């Protein structure tokens, strides 16, 4: 097994009263050491569920119904809860969208960092504090000693997100999964946090899975992009190819609908309709009702993800 992380034919379902719905429908991808992968898509495409399923944090009624996840050669999708705990937050960390929700408001930053460290390692409080301080310096927080004794509400949003990144770095993870890490932040802060993440990946040789709806952010930070639609990866490939010569009509539409890709004042390229709800995914290609190029085959057969001429993998019957 050569890859750091390998996801094979992953399927996640949610058991609802009205029957099971499929949130993720057989996705495959790999991540190597120090590699940065972006997962993009609109709300409900299954991006976050993908992130959660890697560290087995899918809560009921969700469950992994098929497929396997390998990390450093071990099949972690078969791990028990206690085995998983040695991986989660230790070898694979996750950063969430809202830093205020992730930090506990009644404990100081230092307490929370030391607690995390001591949960994973047998070390003294003073050693833990030293490591915490070192990590805070690494995320370029001004006056880190003071921050250790402050409470989350005393810090700004950007600062809190830096703290979260520092916490995720505490135990030197091999992979960081960042789920919309900058969506709640302003543009100038977003640019700084993204710089920081990228820089950390390079210096610490960490893998990054960046989950976001913002193609602009993804295209600047990642090396590979997976575009998700209705629980499937519909296009996957090197960032440059996906962004500059996308094959799948959805990717094309998504890029075209970003203001800035058309001249100011011009009509934006728009994808008609909206993403189907997961309980009601159309037959064949899930994108067919919104696709201009739809042919009879698209409504009957689900297109496989296959190599296309531009160098990406895409799931489309029509375009090559």
């Amino acid at each position, binding site marked *: 097994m050569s890859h750091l992380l390998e996801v094979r034919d992953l399927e996640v379902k949610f058991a609802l009263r009205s029957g099971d719905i499929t949130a993720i429908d057989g996705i495959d991808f790999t991540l190597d050491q120090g590699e940065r992968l972006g997962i993009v898509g609109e709300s409900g495409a299954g991006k976050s569920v993908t992130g959660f399923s890697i560290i087995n944090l899918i809560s009921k009624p969700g469950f992994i119904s098929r497929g396997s996840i390998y990390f450093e050669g071990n099949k972690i999708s078969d791990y028990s809860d206690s085995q998983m705990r040695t991986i989660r937050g230790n070898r694979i960390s996750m950063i969430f969208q809202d830093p205020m929700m992730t930090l506990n408001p009644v404990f100081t930053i230092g307490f929370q960092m030391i607690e995390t460290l001591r949960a994973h390692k047998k070390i003294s409080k003073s050693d833990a504090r030293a490591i915490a301080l070192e990590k805070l310096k690494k995320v370029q927080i001004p006056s880190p000693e003071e921050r250790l004794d402050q409470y989350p509400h005393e810090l700004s949003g950007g600062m809190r997100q830096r703290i979260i990144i520092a916490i995720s770095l505490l135990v030197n993870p091999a992979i960081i999964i960042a789920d919309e890490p900058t969506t709640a932040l302003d543009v100038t802060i977003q640019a700084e946090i993204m710089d920081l993440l*990228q820089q950390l990946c390079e210096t610490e040789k960490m893998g990054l899975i960046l989950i976001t709806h913002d193609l602009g952010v993804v295209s600047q930070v990642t090396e590979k992009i997976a575009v998700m639609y209705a629980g499937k990866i519909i296009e996957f490939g090197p960032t440059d190819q996906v962004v500059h010569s996308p094959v799948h009509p959805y990717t094309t539409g998504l890029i075209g609908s970003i203001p800035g890709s058309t001249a100011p004042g011009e009509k934006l390229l728009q994808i008609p309709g909206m993403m189907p709800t997961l309980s009601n995914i159309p037959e064949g290609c899930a994108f067919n009702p919104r696709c201009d190029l739809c042919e009879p085959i698209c409504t009957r057969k689900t297109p496989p993800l296959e190599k296309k001429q531009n160098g990406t993998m895409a799931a489309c019957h029509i375009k090559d």
Partner: protein
Amino acid sequence: MNTKKPLVSINNVVKHFDISGGLLDQLSFKGGKIRYEKTTVKAVNDISLFVNRGETLSVVGESGCGKSTLARVIMGLYPPNSGQVLYDGQRIDNLSHNQWLPFRKKMQMIFQDPYASLNPRKTVRQTLEEPLRFHNPRLTSTQVNDKIAEVVEQVGVDPVWITRYPHEFSGGQRQRISIARGLILDPEFIVADEPVSALDVSIQAQILNLLMELAEKRNLTYLFITHDLSVVNHISTRVAVLYLGTLCELACAHDLFCEPRHPYTRALISAIPKVGEKKAKHIRLKGEVPTPVFLPRGCVFHGRCVYANDRCTREVPELMELSNGGFVACHAVEENRSME
């Protein structure tokens, strides 16, 4: 364009919010004396601008800079502490409730969150019917129905659906309904407060296209509040950049994006992530946004500005007109300090 009379203009508007709470919270003990102190959030500080008929003026800035407060002051939802708001030459900030009514018909607002801004217990028809009947009590039922059908169709919602409740619609559809509610009275002026921020990219494009199309068809004037600069570049005629409740720069959209002058605008624009562009060097700002409770002296931006000098910490920069018709409030620009 400046020869035309502006549709909306605001002069030296100030809006502060008192957050000091009850009397006992306002008392503090300092230096052996009991002091009575009020804490105020200085949301909007001395802002003047105008919106020309038929244009889209965008107001941008980061969270907490006073964009939404400004919008609400213009709409008469907050009375300003000082300053004037003029609509078509007539002062509207000091009107009584009844005097406001004719202006409400001409000025409408669209809000950010279509989940929160529509009444969940009213059907689409009821939502649209209420303002129409209230402002035009003489309309017959047929006229009301025709009007609703017309507007609903214009915003791209199937008229068959008007008997449904908001929860039956998706986010994009709900935002269309909010827009329909904004349009039902045939307003001239629409304040759109982050109308696309809560929507997905593909839906966002649909709504932006709709807003641009409606502006053309109905000759609308927009005041567009947003933090998303790529949206701003796409739809605006002119752009006003706010920082900590102060107007930093106001310019034609094209000029502002190609040649930003104010150091804050430059940082803001350099931070926009663009698709397919390898990481451009963005300008890093020092420190963090100060709280609007204790505004910095002098230029509000001086603590984060790399070009700031002594003068910036003492003197508040005046808004000055540039050769290209834009306005900027910055000592560094005024003195032609090198900004490389």
